[in-house]
């Protein structure tokens, strides 16, 4: 029974991971791609870990540690990527740019530095 539940978790995790890959292919610009790559993989990884924990209850501590790592590193890294991408002026898909206003300010600040 626990194996079935665990497998279900792992399967749903892999669906998320797959959608992340699909998103990388389908999304229109760098930022949206980063976004799918982050959110969906975080979710996918979490689900896979949970599934594994059900399979092997004695690994729980290590798995928790891994999830923690993923939760910290995934957002931070994608944030850093997106931020520097924005700074470099990576082209964006058509649509409103919420950062446009902040951007000019930070540029001015950057010039001062």
């Amino acid at each position, binding site marked *: 029974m626990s194996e079935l539940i665990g497998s279900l978790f792992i399967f749903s995790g892999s669906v998320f991971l797959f959608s992340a890959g699909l998103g990388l292919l389908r999304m229109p610009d760098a930022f949206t791609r980063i976004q799918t790559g982050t959110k969906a993989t975080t979710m996918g990884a979490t689900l896979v870990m949970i599934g594994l924990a059900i399979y092997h209850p004695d690994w729980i501590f290590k798995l928790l540690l891994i999830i923690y790592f993923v939760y*910290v*590193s995934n*957002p*931070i890294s994608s*944030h*850093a990527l997106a*931020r520097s991408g924005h*700074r470099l002026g990576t082209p964006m898909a058509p649509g409103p740019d919420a950062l446009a206003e902040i951007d000019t300010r930070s540029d001015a600040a950057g010039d001062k530095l």
Partner: protein
Amino acid sequence: MMQRVLSVIVIGLLAVVFTRIVGAYVQLDALRPLAASYVTLSPESLTTPNVITGILITYRGLDTLGEVAVLFMVAASLGLLLKPLEGQPKPPKAFQRSDPGEIVHSGKQVMFPMILTFGAYVIVNGHLSAGGGFQGGAIVAAGVMLLLIATPETRLNTTLLSIVESTAGILFVLLGILGIVLAGGFLDPRFLPAGELGGFISAGAIPLISALLGIKVGAELSVVIDKFRT
């Protein structure tokens, strides 16, 4: 255009070659004698439970030495390759460092010590469990990379790092020579007490070599990362 067509043909033919390999491949059902002898020799003769580490550091130690040399050469030659060319303008402004922001900075505060600790753990437990000098060194370097991204104004002490990597390398070679003098041959680690299988202090000089490798690889990869910042 011609070239693209040819490229596709070449890739297709390579696919044929690879298919032949896969088609003829049969999954092994048992270890071959040489591999089996490693599996018994490593714990018994080297008191190293991690057979892969045993092979890497001892039986194929010459490969490892070569590998270290390769990394060493790369770390050194990047300095040569990335030195600004004569008469070249400074890199454009977009490439200059900028503040990575609050989030990354805080993330670094949390992660950096953890990564280093983990790296050290992987290095020193190389002979017991999955891991070893290269793997741990790479983790340490990843920590350094995070540090450099979070606080770009950090200046690595490359002089110190280069001294460290050289010294570690020389010590590695010296340990190898000690193997000739005290044990069965070059890179033979069995001149230090073997200890008990699975004990932290065991496996002769393997943990020592592993640690040297970890330090060396960590330092080298950090230098590599640092060089790419310029």
